[in-house]
């Protein structure tokens, strides 16, 4: 087999593979969701339970993403700039939520915060409800999307080094100014990358959220759970397709932004050498 034939063959295999796993399903999804006309699609995504699910997902993301971003940047700074005992253990602890199956996270949260858990009794005595409420969903979502910002910021921080910060310090800058004017601009692509991953995971999380949410239509259904419910419980396949299309579109847009960021980051790295 000649070199060019082999390359041609390889290309076909890769495309077929991608087509079978990604292309075809997405095309079918679009076809099914929009197959009954645009108005049917609009009717589906504007019905109250769908809107409520979209709204809840957005709210959860609005809380979980900023919090995890702050915690992620803070932890990355701590790990990159201070040496302390347990440094490595802390880094590993951040990875636990994505290393184990989300369903385990869900069950563990139920155990911790239900009546049988350590805090459950105290919480219910004080009228705070975590399980089967939006609070539980936020908690589960934050858990599964915990490490993304840390993981994308930490290597950048290490690579950038401390010298720019030290230079700023000798020039008279205080901690806050150094963070906003020196550190953050230096790691901004890493932060954006981490935030994008966090958003994608936050919106898409299914398993952990399903366990803690109780799946109450219109109240504790996020978009992925609404889709699952429409598909599996309510036999509203069109509603499932429509919801799936909305979610897929958001994710694809996030991916496009992500790859744009990546290429931008790469360009910048080339500039720096």
């Amino acid at each position, binding site marked *: 087999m000649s070199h060019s034939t082999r390359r041609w063959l390889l290309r076909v295999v890769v495309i077929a593979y991608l087509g079978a796993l990604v292309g075809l399903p997405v095309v079918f999804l679009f076809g099914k969701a929009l197959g009954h006309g645009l108005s049917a699609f609009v009717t589906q995504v504007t019905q109250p339970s769908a809107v409520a699910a979209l709204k809840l997902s957005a709210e959860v993301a609005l809380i979980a993403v900023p919090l995890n971003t702050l915690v992620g940047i803070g932890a990355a700074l701590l790990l990159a700039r201070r040496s302390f005992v347990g440094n490595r253990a802390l880094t590993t602890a951040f990875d636990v939520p994505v290393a184990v199956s989300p369903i385990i996270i869900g069950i563990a949260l139920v155990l911790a915060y239900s009546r049988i858990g350590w805090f459950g009794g105290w919480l219910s005595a004080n009228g705070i409800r975590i399980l089967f409420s939006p609070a539980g969903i936020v908690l589960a979502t934050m858990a599964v999307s915990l490490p993304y910002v840390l993981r994308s910021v930490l290597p950048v921080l290490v690579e950038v080094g401390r010298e720019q910060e030290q230079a700023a310090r*000798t*020039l008279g800058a205080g901690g806050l100014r150094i963070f906003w004017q020196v550190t953050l601009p230096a790691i901004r692509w890493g932060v954006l990358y981490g935030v994008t991953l966090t958003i994608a995971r936050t919106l898409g999380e299914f398993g952990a959220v399903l366990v803690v949410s109780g799946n109450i239509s219109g109240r504790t259904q996020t978009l992925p759970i609404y889709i699952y419910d429409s598909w599996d419980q309510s036999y509203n396949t069109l509603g499932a397709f429509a919801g799936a299309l909305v979610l897929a579109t958001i994710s694809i847009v996030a991916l496009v932004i992500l790859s744009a960021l990546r290429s931008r980051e790469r360009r910048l790295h080339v500039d720096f050498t």
Partner: protein
Amino acid sequence: MSISLSHLTKRYGPHTVVDDVSVEIASGSLTAVLGPSGSGKSTLLKLIGGLETLDGGRVVIEGDDVTHVDPRHRDIGFCFQHYAPFRHMTVAKNVAFGLKVRKRPKDEIKRKVDDLLELVKLEHKAESYPAQLSGGERQRMALARALAIQPRVLLLDEPFGALDAMVRTELRHWVKELHREIRVTTILVTHDQDEAMEVADQLLIMHKGRIEQTGSPTDLYQRPSTPFVHEFLGPTTVFKGEVVRPHDLALLAPGHGVIDGTVASITDLGFEVQVTVLLSDGSTPWVQLSRNEFDRLRLQVESPVSMRERDRRLETGSALTRATQLRR
């Protein structure tokens, strides 16, 4: 004295990298801290700048004890080995940074930045980003940025280390000129003895965390107080059991020197010639000859010669011999 260091000590775990260093540095001087890698010279500079915490000792700058003062309030200009430019800021913004921190009026900042960029010959690069500069230009930008805050002391960590040979020589001259012009007390760290001898008016030789010797380049070269300084500051060879400089040995016609031998090898470098001689005592010292001397002697491998120390060694050589003997 502009900078007074007393009993500075810094340990990393079991290693003492700076070991009880005490030294006085004169106002307006240009001092080179010279030592092999791992001698603690960079750490010493960071201790002066406050970028490393001390395990013991005191740092006094122009009469102020700054031992416990944060680097942001020390009024020092620090230039890092890799310049540490703020990559997301233009050259002008880099230079303006310290002035903005000090909340100077806008027109004053602009004027000062323009002046500094002219001083470091980067006027035409004001709106460029560090990534668009050459190594030498980045170094000059870092200098301008450090000078902007009118520091009491300028600290340069291996300022020419990351540059290629041509730019390096050029920048050395330039830094010397600049220092003559602005007279700010400057300490630079280097592992390159040529660089230190050429640029500095004072040398501070470090070895294993300690100061081996301080003095002017000439002093140290001619009167090294330890074998380490002797060997570190220039080429050495062993003649009759003593460490000497190869250019302090002379070759003469057989029988006219202290000891006879034959030429073992000749390395012709053009401007100088290095001749290794096998002496009758079995030792093989080498001699550094000028082109003229070598041509006059008409030496070849196997030529019989005689060797002795040059006359002008009598005064400095005896001091050296004493020092070497004391150490042994």
